[in-house]
């Protein structure tokens, strides 16, 4: 691979980091697990980068490797972590791969929707994700019960979901 191809590969892979992380979080749930698998996917992609042909679909290649690595990760973690069945994970992974090209649109819509959240909701989301805080930590910090916080976070995510859907729908119709 020539240096300009290496540069292109690195650029494309850099741009894919967020979509791949989101893809993996969809399958694994825990961002920390998604992070672990993403590192492994990156390592494999770099090992195999010579077989990448410039102009071909790096995203499709990366998601195939990512899907395989999710299964490997699951096997390693099976005694500690619960997850979907292998068959259902395969279905989710295929559907998530189809949605990968839309990730940046959704990410942009999300940024806009976040600014429309009421302030207490925005603060809760920030605290939840800034440190990947778990429910126990958040509950202690906000002096609330874990189920109540879980419900609040679910409501906020649903609000964001409705907002993103509305935003993408109106863009599609404009």
């Amino acid at each position, binding site marked *: *691979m020539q*240096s300009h191809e*290496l*540069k292109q590969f*690195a650029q494309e*892979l850099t*741009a894919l*980091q*967020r979509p791949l*992380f*989101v893809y*993996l*979080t*969809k399958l694994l*749930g*825990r*961002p920390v697990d998604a*992070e672990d698998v993403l*590192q492994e996917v*990156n*390592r494999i992609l*770099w090992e195999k980068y*010579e077989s990448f042909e410039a102009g071909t679909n790096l995203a499709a290649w990366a998601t195939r490797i990512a899907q395989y690595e999710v299964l490997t990760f699951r096997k390693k973690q099976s005694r500690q972590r*619960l997850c979907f*069945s292998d068959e*259902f994970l395969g*279905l*989710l992974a295929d*559907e*998530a791969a189809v949605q990968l090209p839309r990730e*940046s649109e*959704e*990410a*942009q819509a999300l*940024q806009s929707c976040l*600014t429309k959240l009421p302030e*207490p909701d925005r*603060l809760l*989301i920030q*605290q*939840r*994700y*800034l*440190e*990947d*805080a*778990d*429910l126990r*930590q958040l509950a202690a*910090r*906000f002096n609330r019960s874990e189920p109540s916080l*879980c419900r609040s*976070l*679910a409501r906020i*995510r*649903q609000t*964001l*979901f409705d907002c*993103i*859907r509305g935003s993408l729908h109106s863009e599609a119709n404009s």
Partner: protein
Amino acid sequence: MSRGSDDNGGATKKEAEHARFIELAAGFCEASLSEPQWRELEALLLARPALRAQFQTWSAIHGQLAWSFGGRSERPLAPLTLAGSKQKRGWSLPAIRMLSIVGLAATVLITFLVFRPHPSVAPENNQGPIVASLADLVGEAEIVSPTGQRTTATAHQALRLKDTLRTLGEDGFAAVTYEDGTRLELSPETELQFVPYLANPDNQPLASGKKLLLMQGTVRAQVAKQPADQPLLLASPNAQMRVLGTSLTFTATNTSSRVELEEGQVQFTRKFDGQAVDVEAGFYAVAASDRPLRAEPLPKLKSYAQTILKPGGGGGAVLDPGAAFLAGLRSKVVQTWNVRTGEETAALKYHHGKATRLLFSPNSRLLVIAGSDGKPLLWNLDQSAPHKLALEGAPLALAFSADSKTVALVGKNSPAAIQRWDAAGGAALADWVTTAGGIASLAFAPDGKSLALGTMGGRVVLWDIASERAERTFAVGNGYVTGVLFSPDGRWIAAMRRADAKLMLWSVEDGGDPVPLSAHGAAIHAIAFSPDSRFLAAGTHDGNVTVWTAADKTESLWFTTHGQSVLSLAFTADSQSLLSASYPGLIEFWRMPKPAAGL
């Protein structure tokens, strides 16, 4: 009957399924599902493709939030110039490749270890370590703790990790200093969070590391030289950069982020696609979804005169339409100054809560002072005692008629009604009740026959006064239209939304679609037409001013003021100069381009 009942039963079952889906999906995101719940969620998603589609977006939101807030996007992925740089020193290609692989894998591994969030970072008592201090404070600011507790900020107060500092209102200004001499100046209405800097193998926040998240507003940063392996990290919802030592201005709005470099250089990265650009001194770049990311030169135009108002007046300031006076709020005093000499010309104590809005009459002799609480005052600058106006609720919109004889306000308690007073004596006139919906801004047409109403729903309604009916409408965007303005010849209406970097120019005669005009800078704060209606100017939160020629909608001029944020603009009577009033209390005079021959 039974059919309807079945339908209802089906609908109820779907609602119950959806409610259960929300519960289980929340458990998925919070990693709190038990094994039976995992199976239940899987069965539900298998059976309901629509819920599966929703789950894909739901879990994508979860991943995107984790990515954005978790600081993952700041991790460097690959040294892009490794191969080329090594080759010059005589390394063989296979060795370079091997080094690339090993090096990149090591980079990935190390950066993963370095940047991975760690639950132990959060101190359980919510009292983070002190990271900086509040050196200067003008107007109001507050500090929000990680638990959401708000306290009024005071000068010299310590700022702790995970605190959020907010400057409030148009006159809130704060300067933050670090031990190494790094200074951050927050413009009014700015929100800055001090984020943990996780940059050592133990994932403990480093006391010397600086990481800042600008949620909105403008920060001017003078960054002392930082260690090469520990740059200051400055991020917004749309962009991020690593700063080793430089002077810059960084602005964030809902939709874009902008950096201007006075000294040094930064790599500026757009978050949503990871694209990056190097920005050097004298250049700026904007990260937004609707424009290419590139560094462009800053304008070199200089103002031909300046007036600095003393003592530091000018918070929430407004220039009079004749470009002779500036009115500003300072503590509980409203003052006016001569903009050419800087001398105070009048002062009035304001005892009615916090004054937030000021408006000069077209003849420059009357001033409306409105606050978030208390009744607005109508002050004749030639008299000492103002009239109190009985407005219903805090003011949303205010305007004078072109002849300065009537003042009109809209209060929050009845946002569809325009309350009016005789400007000479303060006597109440009959209200106008419109069908435009909530009114967020208004302006009288120069001929006094119509009003432009900026609505809370993002439209501008041209409202005929005689028939009390809406004549025409045009769309500006989503949310409040915070400013509308007629050109002095009545041919144009300019409309703005405070958070936008675009304004709309609409031809009253043609009535076609409004033309969007993109301002340099972020978040328009002030607009003005020249008296000859030839120019339209817009000033932004980050101190930029753009001037267009109204007739052909082309940009005629762009300059950067030397203040923090542009508070008000006014043209001189001959339309040949533009005055900018920017925070804190700086008036600058700018010469307009001469018309081309034949025009």
